[in-house]
């Protein structure tokens, strides 16, 4: 239960810069996710917090204690790896008790802790099993118990669900969140899966090329991406480049993008004449039935392709030379399956990102 601060952390591997001047302040009990594509430096950052990698420059602080040069065994952290990494020659109980036994704690205390932890992760009675006798999800739960048994100051997760199948991922991610909430521990979680990040985080740090591009709550990141990269990474796949027209108010403005004129919410740092990228998320676009006047932007287009993915149908619609991706959910998607020809699209949400800043 510590505050974790990273101050200007960088990591060089020869000429390559893996992590570039990262600053992060995680308050006590907070759940922060480092989100980004592979190679963005998120795992390197996490491993530096754990002490498995030494930063080239910068400082790491737990509360007010500087831990930058402490080895992992001096930091009192709990690290959950991509694989459960249970010690294969030890029973479940010995795995969970390992952290306490290397610290020389008395046997009764260790045993009590093992029982408590097994109950916590819902595996009571599994003491004598060997790791290979457990399923992947059970193994990862034992790994969680093993980490929590040492009462760490901070929990670190390195894509702990990536090796599991989808249904298991769903349940286990809420198990992780639940355990973190119940123990009140500060947690830093690394993932490349945005829906995972949105589901469990208090705050999300989107990373790209070794830097934190944007740090904020789920809704901040989702509704107000600050850069091209963030907008695209969280799935705003429709991008139109254009110019802001004269005559907008402080709240709203119009953007000329090719043949289309878009009505958009204005950003205070933009002015008429600026070139911008306008992002529209596929799930924000509705397929209109009759004349629906709830939308500020209404365009007609031709359906080029329909991909049925079960819970959503993905449409590619050509509008004035641009191809829009539209995700349709609900019963509507079933009616659209055999639809060809013209349809009407409507949307309100448009995110503007200034192009100079994004470059």
């Amino acid at each position: 239960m510590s505050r974790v601060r990273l101050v200007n952390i960088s990591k060089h591997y020869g000429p390559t810069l893996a992590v570039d001047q990262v600053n992060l302040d995680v308050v006590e009990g907070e759940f922060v996710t480092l989100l980004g594509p592979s190679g963005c430096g998120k795992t390197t950052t996490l491993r530096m917090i754990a002490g498995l990698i030494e930063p080239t420059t910068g400082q790491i602080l737990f509360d007010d204690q500087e831990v930058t040069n402490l080895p992992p065994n001096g930091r009192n952290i709990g690290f959950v790896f991509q694989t459960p990494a249970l010690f294969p020659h030890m029973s479940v109980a010995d795995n969970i008790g390992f952290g306490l036994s290397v610290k020389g704690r008395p046997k009764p205390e260790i045993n009590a802790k093992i029982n408590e932890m097994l109950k916590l992760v819902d595996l009571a009675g599994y003491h004598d099993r060997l790791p290979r006798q457990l399923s992947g999800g059970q193994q990862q739960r034992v790994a969680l118990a093993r980490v929590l048994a040492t009462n760490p100051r901070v929990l670190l997760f390195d894509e702990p669900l990536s090796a599991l199948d989808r249904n298991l991922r769903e349940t286990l991610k809420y198990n992780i969140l639940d355990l973190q909430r119940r123990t009140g521990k500060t947690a830093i979680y690394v993932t490349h899966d945005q829906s995972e990040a949105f589901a469990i985080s208090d705050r999300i740090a989107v990373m790209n090329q070794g830097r934190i591009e944007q740090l904020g709550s789920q809704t901040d990141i989702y509704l107000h991406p600050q850069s091209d990269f963030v907008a695209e990474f969280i799935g705003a796949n429709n991008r139109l480049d254009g110019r802001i027209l004269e005559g907008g108010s402080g709240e709203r403005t119009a953007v000329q993008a090719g043949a289309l004129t878009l009505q958009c919410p204005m950003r205070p740092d933009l002015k008429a004449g600026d070139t911008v990228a306008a992002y529209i998320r596929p799930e924000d676009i509705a397929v209109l039935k009759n004349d629906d006047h709830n939308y500020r932007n209404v365009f007609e287009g031709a359906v080029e392709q329909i991909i049925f993915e079960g819970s959503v149908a993905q449409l590619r619609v050509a509008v004035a030379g641009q191809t829009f991706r539209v995700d349709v959910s609900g019963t509507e998607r079933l009616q659209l399956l055999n639809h060809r020809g013209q349809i009407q699209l409507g949307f309100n949400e448009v995110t503007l990102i200034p192009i100079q800043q994004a470059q």
Partner: protein
Amino acid sequence: MTTTTLTKSSTKGAGQARFNSRRLIDLLSHLYIWFCLLLFVAPFLALFNYSLQQGTSGIYTLSNYSYIFGSFTNNLLTSLRVSALAISINLLITLPAAYALVRYEFPGKPLLLSAVTLPLYTPAPVLGLGLVLTYNFSYGLITSIWGLVFAMVVGTFPLMLIPIVVALKDLPLVFEEAALCLGATRWQTYFKIVLPLIGPGVSAGILLCFIIVFNEYLVTLFVAPPSVQTAPLRVFNLVRTAGIQNTTAALAAFMQIVSFTAVILFFRLFGSRYLKGTYLI
């Protein structure tokens, strides 16, 4: 109708033919395996047979074996002592060396790895002669058991090193990282996690080392002082001076049995539990 019955019977006939030819191949391959086995074991069986006789009289007795425990005990003990010492020194050298070679990057690593395996490609007389010349500087090494022990270490430590290096390479780093993150020191991590998990490699190294050292006589011939006579050397000397005696054959057979037992014990103990990969989850 007729066509179906026809095809049925013909497939059955073909099946039977195939079955017969498969049986024949089975039989031949079994014969081949037994023949090879016999070929390998024949010298030992001849030796064993001879060691149980009195002269060539055809009278079978165990007295040769009781004789070796009286007369050759010292030689056997010397062999065991040399083996134990060589294995211990080898472990002290190779365990840290293997860890450094696998877990750390340093300049000249590939060169070092090929350099340390050099003794494997060196003919025993070359090694023996080299060691004699080297030992000239130290009276202590020529006159005690240690000269022989070090000679054995030089000759066998690659055999110990390589299985340990392979086992360490196969061991994912994540176990050590997990142990460190749980608060274990580097020593605790090594002894509680790494060493048990590379157990198969270490024990394979020990086995190889034991078999070679226990049976080695050529290098021993060069470096052993007259006061130190190992069992293989005694066999060699006896055959050279007294011809092939039944008692000598008994000693040779006994050494063979010791080596066999070591191998069988190894596979009983480690073959089941460890060789099948404890750390492969």
